[in-house]
């Protein structure tokens, strides 16, 4: 039994989304973008599941997608909390900020000299964390790149 063309196309689209998500999660260093890429991979899987569901005439695929949505929501909630905590510690959203797992005698990997960016710094609306304004730690502030 050969799947119908639409199903195949759905599968291809799902594969593309999944592959792009993979590239994003492997290459991008911004934690937020990495999570967006993870969501992209979930989307790709969802599309594939729906295609197969349609092909087999079974609700199982769609059911699974519903639970994928649920899990994605949970994951986003918890993971974003971690991202926030990480940002609170380093002032960066950089996945390369944590290198403690490296061999003890290796130097820390740092970005080589970047040419000055000519792109104008975009300003987006910001939210201040609620509650008492924390004391600014000078040492920590020095470690931070941009705060």
């Amino acid at each position, binding site marked *: 039994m050969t799947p119908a063309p639409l199903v195949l196309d759905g599968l291809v689209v799902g594969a593309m989304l999944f592959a792009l998500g993979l590239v994003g999660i492997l290459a991008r260093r911004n934690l937020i973008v990495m999570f967006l890429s993870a969501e992209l991979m979930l989307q790709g899987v969802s599309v594939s599941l729906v295609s197969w569901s349609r092909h087999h005439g079974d609700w199982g695929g769609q059911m699974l997608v519903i639970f994928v949505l649920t899990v994605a929501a949970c994951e986003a909630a918890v993971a974003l909390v971690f991202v926030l905590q990480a940002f609170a510690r380093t002032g960066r959203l950089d996945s390369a900020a944590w*290198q403690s*797992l490296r061999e003890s005698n290796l130097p820390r990997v740092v970005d080589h000299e970047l040419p000055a960016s000519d792109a104008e710094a975009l300003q987006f609306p910001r939210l201040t964390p609620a509650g008492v304004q924390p004391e600014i730690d000078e040492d920590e502030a020095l470690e931070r790149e941009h705060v």
Partner: protein
Amino acid sequence: MVDLDPKTLLVLVPALPLAGAILTVALGRLLGPRAHWPAVLSIAAAAVAAVTLLVGLGREVASSADHDHAASPVELTPVTLWQWASIPDAYQPAAATGLDLGDDLTAKAEGLPAAIPFTIGIDLRLDPLTAVMLAVITCVGLLVAIYSIGYMHDDPGYPRFFALVAAFVFSMAMLVAASNFLLVYVFWEAVGACSYLLIGFWFRKPSASAAAKKAFLVNRVGDFGLAVAVFLLWMTYGTLNFHDTLLADGSPLPGILGMERLADPSGYVAGGVGTAICLLLLLAACGKSAQLPLHVWLPDAMEGPTPASALIHAATMVTAGVYLVARCAPLYVACPAALTVVSIVGATTALVAALIGTVQNDLKRVLAYSTISQLGYMFASLGTGTLLGFTAAIFHLVTHAFFKALLFLGAGSVMHAMGGVIDMRRFGGLRRVMPITAATFLVGSLALAGIAPFAGFFSKDEILASLHARGWPDAHTEHHDADPHEGHAGLDLPAAAAFQAVSFRSESDGSAGGADESASTFRTLYWMSLFTAFLTAFYTFRAVFMTFTGPTRVPDEAGHHAHESPPVMTWPLIVLAVAATVSGWWLFSTHALADFLAATPSLTAPAVAATATPHAFHLDLALQGTFAAVAGIVLAAAGHFGRRSDGPQPERYLGPFETLFAHRFFIDEIYTALIVRPLEFVAMLSAWFDRSVVDGLVDFVARIPWGIGAVVRRLQSGLVQRYAVAGALGTLLIVLMLAWRLRG
């Protein structure tokens, strides 16, 4: 007890001490101060069993001797406990394999089956020689064990000591009861191990552990000889059993000392191979019995506890060499050249050790050199190759076991009282402090010096007689003819004929030269032995005078300890003193031992038995021996009671020789220069090779993973995303490979 089968008794003699040793090891800590019970009781029971065997066998010999005057062999059929090893068709006689082992071997191999299995059974055998040895071992062992209860009390290794003594008695009993050369070898090593452990009993003392190592290493040289001798014996005779055995197909396999071979004088290999076997066995005996040139370990072995010295290094273990040569008498008689070597080695050792003994100031070392010297006597006697020589050696072995054990235990008693001091210059006049020890020590000294009627006189007289008989065969014949009373149980064959037979054999073998040459050799040996007797008396009484006479002097170490030893120590001394007094006279006058030993199968071989001479008391020899001994005592007394009161000072008489004797003929120094230093150099080279080349290789191998790791560790950057990339690429690689395989 009397209902027990002799075979059961024979098994019990070694088995009981073994059980005692195991019990002591198992219960030693539990029993605490009573740890001696298992060992002492088991050795006592073994002694009873051994004496019962001796008496029973003695009766049998006596009854067989009544019928005909010839010494007929008496032997118990071997007891096979179990089969230790069995290899079918192990031995291919030279004729079958085509190996050229020389004419002698080929000739011997002709009568053998095509292929002989190599079977080693745990066989125990009893004959008069073994019975005598067993009795001596267990009786002396018992007395020493009882004595040790007092001597070793409060020693932290108390149970260990008794376990070792019991293990030694077991090993020694097995050694003399074994009916197989391989078993002999095994227990030869076992007694060596016990000796090592007992010399190094106080292993925290560096000198003791060094002495133990020295004894062990020097014994290895001898053990090597025994091992090669065993190999040669197997190649020559196709078996290692003493007794005759029946093969599986029913054909008889004559044992090396079996009746079949003994009956035929040509049953033993002579010539090169036979002499090699005999000399290798002699090498083994030299190691164990501390003969030149392997005697260096025995004086050092005195570092061990004195009871161990008395038991192992004076009375029993060191006689294993004498036993081995006596046991292999038929092999030796077939090779007169080897016999002469035995005698020369023995007499030389006796003289050299006696010379060294004259300048020793350590009481135990004097006794150690005297032991070496007396063992030399035994070897000299064995080397005569006559029945008289063999029995005299064993006779001297028995009496020596008693009086030397007595002397050692007496020395131990002195040492015990003096707080461990054994230097004779530091004490004196002890006869007032410890009368029993002094009296018994005097008895032992008289026996050792060879003063009638103490034991040593008779046994030494027999040894001198055996040497004299070889040196002046004609005189002996005349003497025999002039002797009005005929021997009690000797052969009717005249002694002259016997020596002619020996001479004939030596001439026919063409290896030992003529009878005259051999006689002149033995004349020299006789005079050497006589001079040794003089020296023996001198150094023995020098020790006695220094220790027990003169004003009473006690070293500081003794403190309040200077008193007579407890009864548990003095009673063995008294028993041994009685034995040392009466055993010689009794055994000589009744000829009980000689006749008994003459019934030993290996001594009834025609070649040996033909040399039997009627028992006779040689007055001239006895006078010569007594004169030498008295002269020695007088000289010692003169030196001691002369102008100076601090004992006889040999350097006054000896001059430059004193240095030579005091340094023990520089033999240790020669060994150090010739063997130890080159070995140390080789060891140094090996150590360098090991450290730089072998270790360098190992280090190099170890550096390979290290180097790989140094490169690969750069991948461990700690960046999680890099790990993720690697993981994804790896997964893709696997999927690609799977896809490639599914492609077809």
